[in-house]
């Protein structure tokens, strides 16, 4: 069986690793640290907007994307097939979702804004059709002293969508004890504290006594960093249906997705190395023959195939100095403007060019260095050029689908 080294252990790296390991491949994932899953809002987005207008049918809209977009390189038909595979794969690892690549639904952001989404985790609040709300009355349970969910904005946003919203502040012993520290009240620390049956029972008691005549109870996403056990238990203890709404980062749901992907990858025999970021590589005769890592004394790691999944600037897959934009591990060719003044725009809410920068790839997502293609090196996820996670809502989609496309190609020996 052939071997693959994946550089980067976020959503795309792990997804690609899983797809390969499931088929018995020998896979090593080199992780450099936390991934952009920490921004997760509980949904995956395939294609949310084009030129500022929301997309209703993401698969159909792929045709109107420019040729340089990763979806166009992979091909619309293949994307449709891979989208189904992605959902199944998430399901296999224990992340059950609702949604359909042919028609977007709406996720509700921490500020109460409806944004188009492809897949939303089952326990997260979503709306299929904004003109036909399935329920009317919502109780928004706000944790006292928790500032990482802007409840006022969330409530107002929901009211603007047509809901009747009652904001109910509550706390429990476990929560109040966290607030005694000036800095500990974060979604992730709450999630660690709110695991036991007793802790969840106390929350359920508050929900049951305070939610009045609401048809649905919304809670901040502070439950279940490893899996959905605590959310399911809490639902069992509550009289009314519960849904979660994402918080400001670090996102519990992102950590959970990471944990479940990783758990399954390890079960399949995958080799995941944390804190062992790749630092460079050896390129000979148009092929990558080995990578070096940050771990001291570690030998050069070798494999048949390599996949670059190091992410964008946030994850340090790309970087900039005052003169140029570069890829950080192998100094690969990048699609980026040379003139620094063109990287950004004056207005903070305007589209910024640097968001679309990434490594140059061919139609099979293989990388180049100094104009020469590297035959056994593919790029996936946010390190790819030509897409725009912030404005087009295609970040998680590109991560999942480019990962599966490349895994397919490697399995087919292409």
């Amino acid at each position, binding site marked *: 069986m052939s071997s693959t080294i994946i550089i980067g252990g976020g959503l795309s790296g792990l997804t690609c690793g899983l797809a390969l390991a499931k088929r018995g491949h020998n896979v090593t994932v080199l992780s450099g640290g936390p991934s952009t899953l920490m921004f997760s809002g509980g949904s995956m987005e395939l294609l949310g907007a084009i030129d500022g207008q929301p997309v209703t049918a993401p698969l159909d809209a792929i045709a109107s994307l420019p040729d340089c977009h990763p979806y166009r390189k992979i091909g619309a038909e293949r994307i449709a097939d891979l989208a189904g595979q992605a959902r199944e794969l998430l399901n296999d690892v224990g992340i059950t979702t609702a949604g359909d690549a042919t028609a977007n639904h709406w996720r509700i952001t921490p500020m109460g804004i409806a944004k188009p989404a492809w897949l939303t985790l089952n326990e997260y609040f979503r709306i299929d059709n904004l003109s036909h709300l399935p329920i009317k009355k919502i109780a928004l349970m706000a944790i*006292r002293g928790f500032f990482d969910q802007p409840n006022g904005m969330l409530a107002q946003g929901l009211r603007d969508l047509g809901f009747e919203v009652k904001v109910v502040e509550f706390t429990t012993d476990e929560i109040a004890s966290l*607030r*005694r520290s000036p800095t500990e009240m974060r979604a992730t620390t709450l999630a660690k504290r709110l695991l036991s049956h007793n802790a969840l029972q106390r929350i359920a008691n508050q929900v049951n006594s305070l939610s009045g005549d609401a048809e649905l109870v919304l809670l901040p996403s502070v439950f279940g960093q490893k899996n959905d056990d605590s959310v399911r238990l809490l639902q069992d203890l509550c009289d009314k249906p519960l849904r979660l709404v994402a918080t400001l980062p670090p996102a519990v749901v992102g950590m959970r997705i990471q944990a479940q992907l990783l758990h399954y990858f390890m079960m399949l025999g995958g080799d995941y190395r944390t804190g062992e970021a790749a630092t460079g590589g050896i390129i000979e005769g148009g092929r990558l023959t080995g990578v070096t890592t940050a771990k001291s004394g570690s030998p050069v790691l070798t494999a048949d195939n390599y996949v670059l999944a190091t992410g964008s600037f946030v994850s340090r897959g790309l970087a*900039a100095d005052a003169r140029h934009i570069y890829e950080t591990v192998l100094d690969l060719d990048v699609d980026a403007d040379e003139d620094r003044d063109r990287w950004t725009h004056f207005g903070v809410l305007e589209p910024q060019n640097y968001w679309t920068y990434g490594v140059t790839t061919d139609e099979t997502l293989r990388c180049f260095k100094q104009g020469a293609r590297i035959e056994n090196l593919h790029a996936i996820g946010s390190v790819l050029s030509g897409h725009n996670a912030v404005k087009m809502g295609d970040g998680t989609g590109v991560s999942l689908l480019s990962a599966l496309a490349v895994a397919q190609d490697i399995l087919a020996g292409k």
Partner: protein
Amino acid sequence: MTTSDIYSTTYDVIIVGGGVTGAGTARDCAMRGLKVLLVERNDYSTGATGRNHGLMHSGARYAVTDGESAAECIAENRVMRTIARHCIEPTDGLFITLPDDDLQYQDTFVTACRNAGIDAQAIDPAEALQLDPAVNPDIIGAVRVPDASIDPFRLTVANLLDARLHGAVTLNYHEVEGVVTSQGRVEGVKLFNKLDDTRAEVHGHVVVNAAGIWGHRLASMAGVDIPMFPARGALLIFGPRINRMVINRCRKPSNGDILVPDGTVSVLGTTSDRIPIEAIDDMRVTREEVDTLLTEGAKLSPQLTRTRIIRAYAGVRPLVASDDDPSGRSISRGIVCLDHAQRDGIEGLVTITGGKMITYRLMAQAATDAVCAKLGNTAPCTTADRPLPGSDGPAKGLDDDTTRYSFAQRAAIGRHGTLAAKCDSKDEIDNALVCECEGVTVGEIKYALKDLHVYNLVNLRRRTRLGMGNCQGKLCSCRAASLLALFHHDIRRAQTDLANFLDERWKGMRPVAWGDTLREAQFTASIYQGLCGLDTAINQQQEQDNKI
């Protein structure tokens, strides 16, 4: 006092401009018993006051070229150490000589400093490196001087608070649209209230023009011409802070030769370019300014090349051509106080301009003297003898047992001095940190909202330093926006406010958007736009506004 009471009162003096000079003048006038109104068109300290190094000059920088200014600086430096202690970090400064510089200049410099009364001590370069390891190790000479770091926002607020304690009324977001004149006399100002879009005419016996570089506009409303020569200076903020002391180049003042430690960051400046008067509102920093500062800054401290550039900003010095030479060739860098009755035959108008931040109190005294002379008031100036609010007691938590105080309490005491006691800390919610970089608690925000004229997040930043640290408001701005929304009961305003705040932060980041600053920008965009959809919310609001 209701707003209509405020508008219908006739004041002894109306001061236009809420920078440190206007604030200091309001304090001085109020302490001499005058009935005072201060108006500011934006927020307090938005002009040159909030756009400089935050350097409390010892005067050493001017010793060789302008002995008189140097003597003024060191005298005021000593005054500030007693009356504004909570605004100051007494770091001391170094003037370093590099191999490219002329070491003989150091002797000229030390002699000039001593002549101006500045305690300048030439020290061994090795000792200088021990005092501040951030200094360029190649130095061949060093002089220690009593420079310090000062927070201009805090200094302005302290002066305003004291003015109010002495009965002054201060209004921000009130723009002067015209002056009320009658028979060659200025008798008041026409105000536009930007907070509620209303207009009012307010009367006063004397109007003081303390509007800095914008003062020429106010003067021209009264039919007076003041030949202003705007000198623009750009600066860069680096973080986290690298230097302990102020680091200066020991040579004639030039570009990028001062590095000031400022709380959690280091500030490098400045450039100096004459700009046309029409360009004074464009504060965008150019690529050339950034590159010049980076080249020169690396000579002061090579460590700067490895430190993140957090943001860039620019300010405009209000320099005035002397009246006997309107060509602008001889420009006064000293204090300029113009009584327009004597100069132009317009009674009731005094302009105070020129000078430096550190000499603001002297400027205020000169302006107040001119006002008092007109009104027949003979009360003496006492602003140098009475401490500002916040410095009127022992600085608890800074000097004594620091273990008794939390990081946030110490930060608040540092910012507000004795007034930190007004920050609620009765329960764990009040003590919760909103801004982790700068240690700003819920209690401190509540205090600022209640007592410090805060209408939006940018105001809050100037009063508390929220969002001014390493992460530039990445997470705290959303938390603070939520708190403000609860206080003002206006959610939609909270979202536009948040977008404005992020835009204001981005304006400073964009000229230096590479390295970790570009990463932070992408991080912030991922949160506020990608995850939260703030851009969608703002677009929807604009569409609705357009429909109306």
